[in-house]
């Protein structure tokens, strides 16, 4: 509560007290630029983190709701085993639908590797059966046992071995996104601290005069804290606005381009970057406050 009151005092301010510290050109520009650049990067890190989260969820959902049955058998037994497998699947609880892929569909799946003119009829290619699951899903172990008994050439792939590493990779990317945001915050605090230290050192004479006339440390610190907090807020607001515009202007999500075009915000998540400027202001408030207390102690 005390922190919030102090922070609100920064925004309400004391216009006359602000004038006590002379405007310092390069620290003002440095703080504005650093805050803007960091906010811009934070917008992208946030977009990356959200996009990887969405991607992990999509991959998980898509792969979790489907599985594939592969039937490898001599060509004269292939149709019979396919029919037997379909019969097993139709009677399996948790299987919403099952269908054998047509020759054209199998050719399409293989064309990226073998080209469009693949003579699929002359090759010993296994028959694939696409299985769609219900919400509850089926008993994988039970189905495998039944297939082993009734369709010896069938191999069930429930996508677990694909899904887990993909989800893990997406989770790591999302974690890296948040780590990046944390590092950006820390770097912002470091830069603002350096700028505040420079401003405090440059104004040692001002501080001496203020002490001579009875100014308490809180008053002196507040003059610097308010200035740096407002500069950071302004810079971060600019950087966030530019970052959001850049994200908005990215190409729309397309299946062909996959993850790259999916980098962005959707729906309510567009509101998330708006948190960046106030957070930058809080970081600046804390960093400048600490720098001011330290410098005023050293100048005593």
């Amino acid at each position: 509560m005390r922190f919030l009151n102090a922070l609100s005092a920064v925004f309400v301010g004391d216009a006359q007290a602000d004038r006590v510290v002379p405007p310092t050109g390069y620290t003002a520009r440095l703080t504005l630029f650093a805050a803007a650049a960091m906010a811009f990067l934070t917008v992208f890190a946030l977009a990356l983190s959200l996009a990887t989260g969405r991607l992990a969820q999509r991959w998980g959902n898509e792969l979790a709701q489907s599985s594939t049955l592969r039937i490898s058998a001599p060509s004269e037994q292939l149709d019979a085993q396919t029919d037997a497998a379909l019969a097993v699947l139709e009677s399996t609880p948790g299987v919403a639908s099952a269908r054998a892929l047509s020759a054209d569909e199998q050719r399409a799946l293989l064309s990226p590797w073998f080209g469009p003119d693949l003579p699929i009829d002359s090759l010993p290619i296994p028959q694939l059966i696409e299985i769609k699951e219900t919400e509850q899903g089926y008993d994988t172990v039970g189905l495998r046992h039944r297939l082993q008994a009734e369709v010896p050439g069938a191999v069930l792939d429930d996508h677990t071995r694909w899904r887990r590493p993909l989800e893990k990779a997406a989770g790591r990317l999302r974690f890296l996104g948040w780590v990046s945001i944390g590092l950006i915050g820390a770097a912002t605090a470091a830069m603002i601290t350096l700028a505040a230290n420079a401003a405090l050192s440059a104004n040692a004479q001002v501080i001496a005069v203020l002490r001579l006339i009875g100014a308490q440390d809180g008053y002196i610190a507040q003059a610097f804290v308010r200035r740096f907090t407002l500069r950071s807020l302004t810079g971060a607001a600019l950087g966030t606005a530019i970052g959001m515009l850049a994200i908005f202007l990215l190409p729309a999500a397309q299946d062909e381009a996959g993850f790259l075009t999916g980098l962005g915000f959707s729906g309510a998540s567009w509101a998330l970057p708006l948190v960046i400027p106030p957070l930058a202001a809080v970081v600046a408030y804390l960093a400048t406050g600490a720098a001011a207390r330290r410098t005023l102690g050293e100048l005593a």
Partner: protein
Amino acid sequence: MIELNNIAYSYGGGELLSDVSLKIAPGSFHFLTGPSGSGKTTFLKLCYGALVPTSGHVELFGRDVREMSRDDHALTRRQIGVVHQDCQFLDHLPVRENVSLPLMVSGRENLEQVSNLKELLSWVGLGNRAGALPPELSGGERQRAALARAVIMSPDVVLADEPTGNVDWDMSQRLLQLLVELNKMGKTILIATHDMNLIRAAKGHVQARVLRISNRKLQLAGADL
């Protein structure tokens, strides 16, 4: 009010002041003399807590300076107006704001005080220079502005370090007159100066004690004025 008991102060390995004791009573007027480098400025700084003695005790308004926090020192300085030799202004603020800085930092700036500010600036003869920046002022104007800033909070004590150091004789008389007027209002005054003519000029206008720093010691310089 201000009490120094057997204080010593060392700087850079050498002792500047040794075994100095003084009790400054309310409403008194003191001159502090001594050659350049004898420790007059150091003595004044000890008197308002800007320096802490290496040994001995300094009490300001009954409190030992060693036991005071930085904020306590700040509050004490609102009761002690200081006129520095080099005045020390914020060069980017006009005279009016420099003079009213003590009010600003103590949160006592109000309409009544602003009205007092105008009177105060007129009293020190800067009524028409209120909007000027400190670098635009002459030496005498700077000293008068510094005096106005030192007294705007109506402090109990005014300490002045060579207040007439950079001004001509007429202006030093004017400044002395202002300090004498303050003393007649009940303020305690301590002026550090090497200008013996200024001290002689005060004779007949004020009852003052003349102190001298010599060989690191504080002595009474002849008879009181």
